[in-house]
């Protein structure tokens, strides 16, 4: 699943100190559940994003353990408190061992 994976993150660029912001994230991933059969009737092996971790300067915002019950192209919307300027880091962990990351700097006025 290494090919064609795209991550998308939406959050404000600038906030006031201590503000709570909404973050929307998405990764393009087929989230193969492992319960489907191919045309020959053989099971298609599971291949999903099984963990998503969002941190700000090393501190966790949310940490998700994900099962095959989450839809294709997993989307998550949540809120974070911004204690000061810094960088949000997003990591998606694939079943195949790959970790897709994205980051966004945020400035404080």
């Amino acid at each position: 699943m290494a090919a064609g994976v795209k991550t998308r993150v939406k959050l404000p660029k600038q906030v006031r100190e201590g503000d709570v912001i909404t973050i929307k994230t998405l990764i393009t991933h087929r989230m193969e559940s492992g319960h489907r059969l191919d045309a020959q009737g053989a099971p298609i092996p599971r291949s999903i994003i099984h963990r998503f971790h969002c941190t700000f300067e090393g501190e966790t915002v949310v940490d998700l353990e994900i099962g095959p019950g989450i839809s294709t192209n997993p989307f998550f919307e949540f809120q974070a408190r911004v204690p000061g300027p810094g960088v949000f880091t997003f990591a998606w962990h694939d079943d195949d061992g790959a970790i897709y990351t994205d980051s966004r700097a945020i400035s404080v006025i």
Partner: protein
Amino acid sequence: MPLRRRDVMRVSVGALVALTVPARAQQLLVMQQDATLDEVIVAFTDGAPIAEGSMSLSLPDVAEDGYRVPVAIEAPQAEEAVLIAPGNPVVPVLKIRFGPLAGSQKLSTRMRLAQTQDVLALARMPGGTVAQDTQPVSVIVGGCA
């Protein structure tokens, strides 16, 4: 037969192993693929009583497309929450840990529902209690979860 030191050692090592290997209930992980509904609940609550209220699970009453059902969990103050679909082939769907920088204990996503069922969410509160909310959803086209 005289009691030899090595026999004593063998027995005590065996006893130690037996003590440290936990029972199945304790081994269970919340997100275990083959876990049943009860096992997921036990693994998450660890025996704590479950109370209705103080958390909410939002889902449409009718899901036209079981492949993409919008779902939102809101559990003010919660440390952890778990989303459970008892009618899916894999019952545990999502486990959320809210970190110190979570701005609220709310998360929205999209889930698969294999059939019409009562979707369940549990949240662990700071005092160690567990809150629960259940939402019945009619699924028109089941999403192979």
